[in-house]
């Protein structure tokens, strides 16, 4: 196994140096951000992904539809149910069946709880990148526990549930889930107020994030931004409203939109989305219909192609499924939101002057997830 030698220090003109914020770095996660800088001003950012590329799209061609859920969920461990939902929605569209209403409501609850878990991770890391590591990052890590416990109670696993299957949901709500969930919502709502005070009024945090990495709405659309990064630039685009899936058609909720388009706005959009998710879960729990939770589904899916979209925590996750009638998918193309969010980070130095200390803040404000981009 050839260990890579120390790359030759390439001489860049103008005294620049290429700093690799590598896979082993407090902020970088499982990838490398190669920054060309002279110490303070950043001239070019290149994100080197692929460090956890497992070839999930090729593996899925080797698995049946039901088996494919497990490796596909490993793509983004933070909100696995959205990946699940996109894949299952594509299969259901090809089969032409519809999950029973009770299953739709249970699915909505899981999706929204997953969104909260993922957004707390994003906010914690954004605070950590501005140096506010001790308090905020660990508050959010701690406040995520009640939801993880609820998920464990419902599905048996803390992170990768594979609970949403073609045709409905694997099991019904256990007894006592509703009371526990309402208690957790109450606790988290008042914790969110604490975050709002700690977040909005923290002068130094605002100084570090306002006006940093501003993306106008035209550029956001042109570069294909996804999810909160798009809504933070003033574009009203939410797949839950455009193409309602699960039970979003019957529940009323609004979309959190900001216009500033900077790192602060992206954080604010995520906090408001958490408030909205709490309301959605409460509504879904209150008027939960009764009835069956599963419809039996044939092994073989009729041939055809379909593109299904789901609003995951990081943005619009699309699955382009081509099936050839057997029980294994012919081709699955997953358009991961983080893959597009990284592109924003690379394009930013072209429109705005960025400091070296801002790179982690920007990287965390887009909330990309290297595994999601690598697939």
């Amino acid at each position, binding site marked *: 196994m050839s260990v890579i030698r120390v790359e030759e220090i390439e001489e860049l003109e103008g005294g620049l140096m290429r700093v690799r914020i590598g896979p082993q770095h*407090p902020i970088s996660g499982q990838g490398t951000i190669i920054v060309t800088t002279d110490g303070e001003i950043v001239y070019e950012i290149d994100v080197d992904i692929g460090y956890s590329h497992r070839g999930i799209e090729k593996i899925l061609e080797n698995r049946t539809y039901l088996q494919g859920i497990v490796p596909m969920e490993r793509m983004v461990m933070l909100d696995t149910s959205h990946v699940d939902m996109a894949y299952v929605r594509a299969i259901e569209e090809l089969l032409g069946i519809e999950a029973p209403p009770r299953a739709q409501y249970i699915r909505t609850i899981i999706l929204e709880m997953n969104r909260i878990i993922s957004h707390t991770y994003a906010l914690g890391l954004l605070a950590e*990148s*501005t140096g506010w590591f001790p*308090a905020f990052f660990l508050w959010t890590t701690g406040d995520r526990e009640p939801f993880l416990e609820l998920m464990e109670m419902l599905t048996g696993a803390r992170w990768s549930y594979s609970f949403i299957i073609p045709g409905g949901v694997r099991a019904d709500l256990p007894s006592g889930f509703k009371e526990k969930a309402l208690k957790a919502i109450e606790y988290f709502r008042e914790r969110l107020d604490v975050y709002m005070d700690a977040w909005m009024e923290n*002068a*130094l945090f605002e100084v570090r994030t306002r006006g940093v990495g501003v993306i106008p709405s035209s550029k956001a659309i042109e570069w294909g931004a996804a999810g909160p990064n798009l809504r933070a630039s003033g574009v009203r685009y939410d797949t839950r409203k455009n193409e309602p899936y699960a039970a979003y058609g019957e529940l009323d909720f609004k979309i959190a939109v900001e216009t500033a388009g900077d790192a602060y706005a992206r954080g604010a959009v995520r906090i408001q989305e958490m408030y909205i998710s709490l309301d959605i879960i409460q509504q879904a729990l209150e008027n939960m219909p009764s009835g069956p939770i599963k419809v039996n589904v044939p092994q073989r899916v009729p041939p055809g192609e379909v593109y299904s979209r789901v609003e995951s925590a990081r943005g619009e996750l699309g699955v382009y499924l081509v099936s050839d009638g057997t029980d294994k998918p012919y081709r699955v193309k997953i358009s991961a939101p983080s893959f597009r969010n990284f592109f924003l980070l690379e394009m930013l130095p072209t429109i705005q002057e960025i*400091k070296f200390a*801002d790179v*982690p803040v920007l990287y965390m404000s887009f909330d990309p997830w290297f595994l999601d981009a690598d697939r």
Partner: protein
Amino acid sequence: MYEDIINQLWSFIQDNLKFIFMITIFPGLAFIFIFVIFAVWFKRKYLARLMLRMGPVHAGKVLGWLQLIADAIKLIAKEFIIPRTTLKFLFFLLPILLPVIPACLVLLIPYAEDYIVFEAAGNGLLLFLAIATIYPVLSMLTGWVANNKFTIIGALRTIYMDVAAEIPMVIAVLGVVILTGSFDFVKIVEAQSKIWFIGPQILGFIVFIIGCLGMTERVPMDFPVAEPELILGVKTEYTGPLYLLMMEADFVNWLAWLLLLVTLYLGGYNGPDIFMNKTISGIFWVLVKLLVVMILLMTIEVTYARLRVDQAVRLGWRILIPLSLLNLVISILLRYYMPWMWGVG
């Protein structure tokens, strides 16, 4: 033939027993080591508590007090690596030198009326500031010697912070000198017997606190060691015992600046003497004030984000320097109109 040497030695010890005690026990080596271990332990427990978690517990079976000793032992027993691209002599010398600089600052501070190790003939404050400014230069050298991309950026930033935080702080300290009329620590503390200088010199106090955060690299101004961007800033390349010395130097530097803060603005050893003996109550008051200021700075460290380099330098030049100049004007007026308040007129 050996007897007279031993007798001489014995008489020498008896003459200045107090001086030897001061050097080795109280403000000397023992106090510094114990304070460093206590400060690191307290910081980890206090910050953990603010993060809603427990902090080290199992190391010493009660509140984890042995945790720091375990860390120190582990670091001593670690193998140290000398990167090939460094100057070996400097790579070893600098970490050893770093804790020494702030250690000798601790001896200049008066802990009670007659309890001061080195009088410095009336200008203790001047000597303190002179030695204290060597520390950033040395930490910049460690960054440069380690010859790693991140440490070089860290070294550059140490100079930025030095410029941004130190100049306004020295001007703020000038305010205190104008009020008391001398550089002598004892006179400064005597002048504060009626009212502590935090009252009249509130602007100077604010500038000093921010400068102190900068000099000791605490969170709002700690971009030389900014974890998210530069791995450990200046200390990245040091392993084992050298890292132990560097980490210790950080906290001794913190102790020195806190002691200066206590003597200049919070009235050194002034305070109702609870114990019969004056010196013991003096020492007691200095340590209590030290603890209070330490807790205050740690709380600031948890609740605020880190400033960017250019923002810190802009803060330093645009806001801190005018503030400290304004503080100079105020102290001149106070000195001219109410000299009796400060035991001078």
